[in-house]
């Protein structure tokens, strides 16, 4: 039986968010919401991460950074865009330097809307992400067996 979904490690990257969503992401690790009870660890290292949490839109300066972080994460991996900015560009969408949401540079699996996204909805998104993570892991294992 695979237990891979019981240990999802998060990497949180702040694109060009106003910090509203970041504070809510960090709130998830506080005693009130305590995401660690799902086995979640908020790691700072893309190479150890399973779930990539992006807050804020992507601008021309950090597009390459977002891409590099995504590429450094080993498979299976899941990307969650947290907040309206990360989903679509949000209120900054029309700015000259903003490309749009995170999905303009990397494939996003789950969108968590809200300005700012509430901790409850972020946890909801992470739980959905964990289910998807398990699915992707199973697929990866099957394809490895086939080869």
């Amino acid at each position, binding site marked *: 039986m*695979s*237990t*891979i979904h*019981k*240990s999802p*490690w998060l990497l949180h990257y702040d694109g060009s968010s106003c910090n509203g969503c970041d504070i809510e992401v960090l709130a998830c690790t506080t*005693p009130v919401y*305590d995401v*660690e*009870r*799902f*086995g979640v*660890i*908020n*790691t*700072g*290292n893309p*190479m*150890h991460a*399973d779930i990539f949490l992006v807050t804020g839109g992507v601008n021309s300066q950090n597009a390459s950074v977002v891409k590099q972080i995504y590429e450094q994460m*080993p*498979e*299976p991996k899941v990307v969650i865009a947290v907040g309206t900015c990360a989903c679509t560009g949000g209120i900054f969408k029309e700015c000259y330097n903003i490309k749009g949401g995170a999905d303009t540079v990397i494939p996003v699996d789950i969108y968590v809307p809200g300005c700012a996204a509430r901790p409850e909805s972020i946890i909801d998104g992470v739980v959905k992400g964990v289910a998807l993570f398990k699915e992707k*892991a199973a697929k*990866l*294992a099957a394809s490895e067996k086939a080869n």
Partner: protein
Amino acid sequence: MTVQTKVILAVCYIILAPVVIGLLDGFDRKISARMQGRKGPSVLQPFYDLKKLFEKEALCANRAQLFLIRSYLMFIMLSGVLFFAGYDLLLVVFALSTSAVFLILAATSTHSPFSSQGTHRELAQIMACEPMELLVAVGFYLATVPRTFNVEFISKSFSPNIIYLPGFFIGFVFILTIKFRKSPFDISTSHHAHQEVVKGVTAEMVGREYALVTLAEWYESAVLYGIVGLFFMSRNPFSIVYAIIAILVVWFLEIVIDNTSARVKWQLMLKLAWGVTIIAAGMNLFLLEIIRSNIR
């Protein structure tokens, strides 16, 4: 001890050490979470983490790294086998130091800035801890009659060695905080996820490689807890109970220190570790010599 018992003890170490230390780690995370007013993950969490790491994609920075990490694990297991089968304590300490060299080589083989920074910290940590580890072996040698480094003889001494070696014990427990990668927070690689140098020496180790390093750390912890227990072992068959109680007390103490010293930096670590080594172990060594020469 017969050769058969030695082999059984060594096999027990290889099989049981990760189970016991993994569980202790799980309870550690649970208790830490409770101390912070959280619910915390399942006590089996360390095993889930390890299993997941083995299932992740293998993204090796270079082929040498995996080989070096395997050597790191092998040397730690060797030191554990030597210790639990009752061989030479000095050899155990040397095998542990040799293993650290492989970890450093593995970290530097990638040229990542975080790994390099972590390597410098790891070297500082070795400087902080190594004198105490060696002194513990010397302490046991001086305390046992007749003088010996043999773990089997030490564990069967007339009275528990803690009576002669309280200073060594304090010094050793002090460096355990560093050895278990709990405090300071900017250590070469921390068992906490977020730290100043990302993940330091383990920053570039992906999936299976990181799992092997974690496993090696569990085996190392087993040896270190074993040395803590050795202070309380004697001819009395019940002494093993005292040893286990002492290990659990030290384990709990480490959790408390971890949760109360979140902002200690490595510079302070170096000074404190040497200070405690010189004062506690040095004084103890001095007194031990005086007592011994009077008896003679």
